[in-house]
């Protein structure tokens, strides 16, 4: 993606090039595409056995994209920058492992299965640029007890994202932030489905579409709290900005709560840039376009402020600044 250059020394880079075998290892952490792993281990099945990935997690035959494996207790000293080439991917973080991942540039369909074992952490940032054809991603995450997952998804243009997360073990945490820009006649959809299947878990969703032109957006956020998931905390907010009168945003919050001792809330807003704030900035000598850009930047930054890796956060913010808002 143009403008997204991070100094080599700040990250580990992995390009899931589908045309050749790729395999990388840093400090025990493995990243490879199917061909790369097969070349190294003999077969995908052998590799999955080596990682002790339970057959229920994924079907070895289905992985044709990239695979990231963080062994027990390992953590990367730098963020991993993964350039996806589409397909079915797997991210598996064993107990106590930690990974900081930035995934970008998948101009096609892409599905990622994520499994976090006990006390594993994954901080994932996704950057997507939809073209004429919609970029479509599906993340299916399964989290064991005390695992932590955060997803920051920054998307531009025609994008269709689905995130399914199951908080399967006690005290698991899932945080998701979605920042979506659309212009002209583009359409972006975000669907989130979070299941609290164990007690004392927390989930927190915040999505913001910023729409210009005649673009449209869709947000569907479902939270299911199963009967045994007592002491659940689950929040959802969809807060959107329509920059032009012909833009349209559909929001569907769905809460299904079967436990009785829970804290859950949802909220949805659709609004415009604060005209009073625009005037305030202009009254100090800042041009109208610049004033609107400053306010948009602030609205965008609100969603990105807790990106774990400073290097990744810095680059995403720089990327936003060079985007042309309308």
């Amino acid at each position, binding site marked *: 993606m143009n403008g997204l250059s991070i100094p080599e020394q700040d990250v580990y880079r992995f390009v899931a090039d589908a045309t050749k075998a790729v395999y990388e290892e840093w400090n025990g952490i493995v990243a490879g595409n199917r061909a790369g792993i097969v070349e190294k281990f003999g077969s995908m099945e052998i590799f999955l056995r080596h990682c002790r990935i339970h057959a229920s997690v994924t079907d070895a035959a289905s992985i044709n994209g990239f695979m990231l494996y963080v062994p027990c207790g390992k953590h990367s000293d730098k963020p991993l920058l993964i350039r996806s080439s589409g397909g079915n991917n797997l991210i598996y973080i064993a107990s106590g492992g930690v990974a900081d991942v930035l995934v970008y540039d998948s101009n096609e369909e892409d599905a990622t299965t994520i499994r976090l074992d006990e006390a594993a952490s994954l901080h994932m940032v996704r950057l997507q640029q939809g073209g004429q054809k919609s970029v479509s991603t599906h993340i299916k995450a399964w989290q064991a007890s005390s695992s932590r997952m955060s997803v920051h998804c920054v998307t531009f243009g025609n994008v269709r994202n689905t995130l399914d997360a199951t908080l399967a073990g006690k005290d698991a945490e899932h945080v998701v932030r979605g920042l979506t820009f659309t212009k002209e006649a583009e359409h972006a959809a975000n669907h989130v489905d979070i299941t609290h299947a164990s007690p004392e878990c927390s989930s927190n969703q915040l999505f913001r579409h910023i729409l210009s032109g005649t673009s449209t957006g869709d947000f569907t956020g479902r939270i299911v709290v199963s009967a045994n998931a007592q002491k659940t905390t689950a929040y959802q907010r969809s807060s959107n900005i329509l920059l032009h009168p012909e833009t349209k945003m559909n929001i569907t919050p769905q809460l299904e709560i079967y436990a009785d001792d829970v804290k859950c809330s949802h909220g949805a807003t659709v609004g415009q840039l604060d005209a009073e704030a625009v005037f305030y900035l202009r009254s100090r*000598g800042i041009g109208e376009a610049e004033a609107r850009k*400053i306010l948009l930047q602030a609205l965008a930054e609100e969603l990105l402020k807790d990106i774990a890796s400073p290097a990744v956060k810095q680059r995403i913010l720089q990327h936003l600044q060079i985007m042309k808002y309308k």
Partner: protein
Amino acid sequence: MLSIRNLHTSVYGNKILKGVNLEVKAGEVHAIMGPNGAGKSTLAAVLTGRSGYEVTQGEVFFEGTDLLQFSPEERARKGVFLSFQYPVEIPGVSMANFMKIAVNEQRKYRNLPLLTASEFLKRMREKAELVGLESSLINRSVNEGFSGGEKKRNEIFQMAMLEPTLAILDETDSGLDIDALRIVANGVTMLKRPDSATIVITHYQRLLDYIVPDVVHVMADGCIIKSAGKELALELESKGYEWLVNS
């Protein structure tokens, strides 16, 4: 410096200003007083280019050019400043960043060299001290979580940073306790220059104890109905507006 001639203004079809005339010269302080709904804040809004205010008649000249043709930002760059009656909270935009952009936009317009980061920080610290704004507030988002008094002080801080030629203070005294009022007023007085002018819009005389006006105007029903020296403010304080409005 500022010349307002027979200014008529409507807001959503309602006539608010009905022929305002006002002459302000460099070095002067003018106070505009008057009852609620007289059109004082409308006048401030029209002068700074707030949208929704339609000038139906009359003209405004600022330093010899027609002010009304310019956008709000152009007016600001030419040296017009408004201290807002209700300063706006802007979450996520830091005061420091906001002021840096504003100061440099104005300097660019005036063909002055842009301030370096260290010059800018030095200036922020000096001006914050001048108006008694706690320096921690500079690192926060614009007006977010500021008390009423801090917001008003922040307006005067911005005025100090931008060094306007014409400052319009719209009810800057409202919501201030007496200590804050004194600090704000002293700040305004210290910022006075021989080539600048100030218009103070207020309900009450008490601000004028600290910012001494050269001329006091009384506005009622969209017109300036009386102009006199600073003693008029005292007379208004004791007698109210009734005697003027009904005479």
